[in-house]
């Protein structure tokens, strides 16, 4: 399985539920395209729910960062929700915890965009 991305709206926050693997190839491409399409459509408050992501490689991490900058360049913000222990470790190793706001609770995450 590559990655499965499902988008839903909670108020004015767009939640992207991601499941599977974000790795070089189809997974990373789908992820990049989805974030770019949302940004191009004017979605400025993106919450990426990574609870069901089992695996991210450096390409996937790169797409997370690129998505963050793409949305930020359009005046928006990307936040992360429900990281697995392994994804948390990756963000710590890469120091990206200093870049992303991370939440465990969806309601609190949505509220933080207000």
């Amino acid at each position, binding site marked *: 399985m590559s990655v499965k991305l499902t988008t839903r709206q909670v108020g004015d926050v767009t939640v992207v539920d991601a499941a599977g693997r974000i790795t*070089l190839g189809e997974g990373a491409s789908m992820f990049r395209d989805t974030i770019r399409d949302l940004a191009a459509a004017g979605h400025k408050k993106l919450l990426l729910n990574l609870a069901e992501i089992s695996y991210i*490689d450096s390409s996937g*991490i*790169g797409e997370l*960062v690129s998505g963050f*900058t793409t949305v930020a360049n359009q005046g928006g913000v990307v936040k992360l929700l429900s990281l697995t222990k*392994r994804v948390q470790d990756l963000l710590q190793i*890469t120091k990206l915890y200093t870049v992303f706001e991370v939440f465990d609770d969806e309601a609190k995450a949505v509220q933080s965009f207000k």
Partner: protein
Amino acid sequence: MEAHTLERELESTLESVDSAEQLVFAEAQALGLDEDDLYRVGIAIRECMVNAVVHGNRYNSRKKVHLKVERTADRLAIVIGDEGDGFDPKAVPDPLDAENLLRGSGRGVMLMQSFMDEFQISQRQPQGTEVKMVKYKAKAT
């Protein structure tokens, strides 16, 4: 225990990344690594294979990726070589520098170093880059 060794010559494709991951994963399981170390070895192999296929051989169908895995009682040693133009790890900007944190790439070597117990890059003869990585089985406490 005698060393168990396997060697493969792989095509310069992303499918080879999956193949190498599966081959090494089976050896890592046979060694008895725990789930966390299996995951770490998997990440390291994928990163290394991607570098060999994408940056080393540049998907060139005439160039191969050379994989060697040696398993002994307490460790797994993996050597991955490409036939590219060579690689200077010092030329990669430090991905942990504040000015590089938002770069979209350049984290692969750091992840390999973080997840493996030994990591070494050298020039491959007659051409290319060779990476040797070792993972030790954690001793029971």
